[in-house]
């Protein structure tokens, strides 16, 4: 019996201790006519060898392509110690650190993670993480409504340069509480938000969301946008890529006063792409808003003999204490991914992360150059960029991408469904994982795909 240790003698002795004649008798409070018959739709058991054979075949069938898709999830090199540490049973198979004395390892690690994220974003405090970047933005919007005491409004400005899927998720999660989201159009030439477009939005919103780099990979003028929002009593919610923060100004120092809430997708920090998850969302904020922040928070304190130690704190915000009046229904963080991210950031340090960010920037610029040298390919926007570029093709993108995929290259993300006004737009990404040969191959395959179609 897989994972069941009981011998026949064990079972007999245990039933005697209980005073029951059979295991079935233990279920005698369940009405007999409700009981389940055989589960025909579940296949018969496999041994570990058999299931390994099956999964190896399936994984191999999916493997091997050269990937240039980003659009919110980014392929980075993950140092060997990261998952060797994260999959240690003591981290992997522990639960939420409710018993602080028996969970000092997880608690101290989260405290260190909070410290690193606060540093990286130049904010005062961080929580212990949320599910992913999109849900972190939803929680940030809900938090902004609670935290903004100047403006009594449920409206939030979301420029169209914010990841459109994030906006979809934010609407799914926060829409039920009456929040509404006004979109702001972007400048067609530069692919960024302008103050003119913001000025055209209806006044009186609670917060402005700014994504940096934005969904097109372009760099927004974050200082001016932040000051514009603050001058109108809005809070600023920054959505940032953590890798980029090694090179780009931290949201805590945007404009005169800095952003108020910072969130984003933590996946680039040591989490594999893994078909979409598990990733983690991060969130940092100002000290003044800490009691409005959702999610677990770890604090350092002392024990009964005065030694330093760590514990979950500010739990009065949370569902297990406040029930229906909690800041969120969230009950966990993404502990294992936070473990990976903490090891990753410790191995990188600021200097190593800077090199990663720079290598991504250089790879993307080299790729963009090589692709734009092809006939029928040009840059969509004239703006500084990080590790993604929006390109325009002279024909529909989907058939081109399909041809590239047949040749083992995932050539980017087709923007035409989300941004039809751009025409045949394609978002490409290159990170430090791509060698000069990889970039050359991408360009050669795209050339081939464009010629085949002609």
């Amino acid at each position, binding site marked *: 019996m897989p*994972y069941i240790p009981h011998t026949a003698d064990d079972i007999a002795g245990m039933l005697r201790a209980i005073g029951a004649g059979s295991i079935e008798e233990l279920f005698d409070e369940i009405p007999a006519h409700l009981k389940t018959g055989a589960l025909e739709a579940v296949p018969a058991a496999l041994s570990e060898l058999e299931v390994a054979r099956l999964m190896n075949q399936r994984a191999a069938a999916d493997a091997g392509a050269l990937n240039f898709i980003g659009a919110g999830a980014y392929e980075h090199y993950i140092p060997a110690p990261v998952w060797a540490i994260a999959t240690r*049973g003591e*981290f992997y198979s522990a639960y939420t650190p409710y018993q602080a004395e028996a969970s000092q390892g997880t608690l101290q690690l989260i405290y260190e993670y909070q410290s690193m994220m606060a540093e990286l974003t130049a904010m005062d405090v961080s929580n212990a993480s949320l599910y992913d970047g999109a849900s972190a933005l939803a929680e940030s919007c809900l938090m902004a409504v609670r935290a903004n005491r100047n403006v009594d409004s449920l409206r939030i400005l979301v420029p169209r340069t914010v990841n459109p899927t994030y906006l979809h998720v934010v609407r799914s999660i926060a829409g039920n509480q009456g929040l509404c989201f006004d979109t702001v159009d972007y400048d067609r030439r530069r692919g960024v938000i302008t103050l003119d477009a913001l000025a055209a939005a209806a006044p009186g919103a609670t917060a402005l969301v700014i994504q940096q780099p934005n969904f097109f990979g372009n760099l927004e003028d974050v200082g001016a946008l932040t000051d514009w929002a603050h001058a109108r009593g809005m809070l600023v919610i920054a959505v940032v890529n953590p890798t980029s923060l090694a090179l780009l100004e931290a949201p805590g120092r945007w404009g005169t006063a800095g952003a108020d809430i910072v969130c984003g997708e933590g996946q680039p920090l040591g989490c594999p792409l893994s*078909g979409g998850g598990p990733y*983690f969302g991060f969130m940092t904020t100002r000290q003044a808003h800490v009691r409005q922040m959702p999610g677990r928070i770890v604090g350092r304190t002392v024990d009964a003999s005065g030694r330093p130690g760590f514990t979950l704190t500010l739990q009065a915000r949370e569902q297990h204490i406040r029930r229906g009046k909690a800041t969120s229904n969230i009950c*966990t963080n993404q502990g294992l991914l936070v473990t990976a991210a903490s090891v990753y950031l410790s191995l990188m340090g600021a200097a190593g992360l800077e090199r990663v960010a*720079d290598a991504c920037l250089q790879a993307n610029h080299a790729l963009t150059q090589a692709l734009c040298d092809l006939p029928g390919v040009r840059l969509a926007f004239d703006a500084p960029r990080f590790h993604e570029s929006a390109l325009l093709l002279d024909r529909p993108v989907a058939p081109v991408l399909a041809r590239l995929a047949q040749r083992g290259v995932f050539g980017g993300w087709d923007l035409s469904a989300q941004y039809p006004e751009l025409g045949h737009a394609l978002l490409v990404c290159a990170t430090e994982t791509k060698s000069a040969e990889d970039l050359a191959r991408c360009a050669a395959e795209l050339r081939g795909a464009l010629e085949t179609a002609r």
Partner: protein
Amino acid sequence: MKSLAMHEPVIFDLSREQRTAAAQHVPALAAGAQIPAPLRRARRPRLPEVSELQAVRHFTRLSQMNFSIDTQLYPLGSCTMKYNPRICNQLAMLPGFLQRHPLAPESAGQGLLGCLHELQEMLKAVTGMRAVSLTPMAGAQGEFAGVAMIRAYHRARGDLARDEIIVPEAAHGTNPATASMCGCKVREIPCDANGDVDLDALRAALGPRTAGIMLTNPSTLGVFERRIEQVRDLVHTAGGLLYYDGANLNAILGKVRPGDMGFDVIHMNLHKTFSTPHGGGGPGSGAVGVAQRLAPFLPIPLVLKQGDAYRWAEERDLPQSIGRLSAFMGNTGVNLRAYVYMRVLGREGMRRVAEFATLNANYLLARLAALGYEPAYRGRRASHEFIITLKRLQREFQITAMDVAKRLLDYGYHAPTTYFPLLVPECLLIEPTETECLQDLDGLVSALEQILREAREEPSLLTEAPHSLPVKRLDDVRAARQLDLRWKPPA
């Protein structure tokens, strides 16, 4: 060496300027030359500067300061801390799965999509629901999806007044918090002295504003709701829907299905019932299952099979969907682990989960009751977990549930859940799970027997516990009043 009795500095205090873990670093190229000066970072973040060995040793030592399933029996009620088979992790981390970009073409992801589709089908089979979406990223998000679907269903019928969710007072805190997040009002109803829902209170709460009821069965009181069919009929007759909180699905897997009990929507905690790791507090995965009438509202994406090919269902397939809850497909890697687990257990293994979890719980209950520990619901069968109340110990010796919990840590057992559910005074909620063997259960019984003796003879062993861990009890009041939430360099 007693590895648990140690202190480890905060990693920032191990740092020295310019020290690096050089092997993992990529070459320096152009220092971000293309970024305009006003957008550049002005000051480097103060991240750790340590060698690779320092980092590995630091985090390894931190790991040794944790209790975990791999190192201790972890009878944490309502959390189902069963063995997380290593094979599940190993196979979910095969390069073909790990390196897959979520937006990569479906044609090049049929292996993964096939696993996820089969997982959906197996979850339908064991819950008796008609359709499943794997997209919610944790139990609380599954709850959110469930209540959002209930609301969407009523709205789609033009039944706009239904904005109340009924929740038994014993419910997990996420239930009322979820109802609030969905914009619903919460009506809490009591349970009777035997732990069943108080039907008169339920009747009084039901009405034209009832959107639905959220139930856990077996309940958080560790007993099966015997009148579930009456509850179902009352709620359905009043026009409400029944939501099943899958927190305790382990207790009934393969024995009775929520769909057959009449539930309209359920969430499952794959990190409990299907043994994916808890990871120190996540990631979870909170798949949702629904009856036919709620299928159009399922969160996207979910996997469809057309002929021999799999693809993601999107907005155009489910125009009435409550929408997306994550940037991509939910916690795919967690779902893969659950898939491997279910394939290894197979058809017969499902039923064994509930049977041996229940056997272990009833055995522990019988042994502890014989020692003088007081069951909260005497005369009821334990499900996969049970509650003992220490109110007598508290009265006679001023010993609290927290004291017993902390003392158990000294004996090398993780504590049971304490002070939940809120309505049982001084309670311990104990869930051994099916993967614990008899010797280890007996070890826990011996420890609790010894602790009872200590309570009478030397209570300071309990009130000052733990004695053998890296820290003694922590000052939670100070933690909340003098907030220290991040490392800062010495002034």
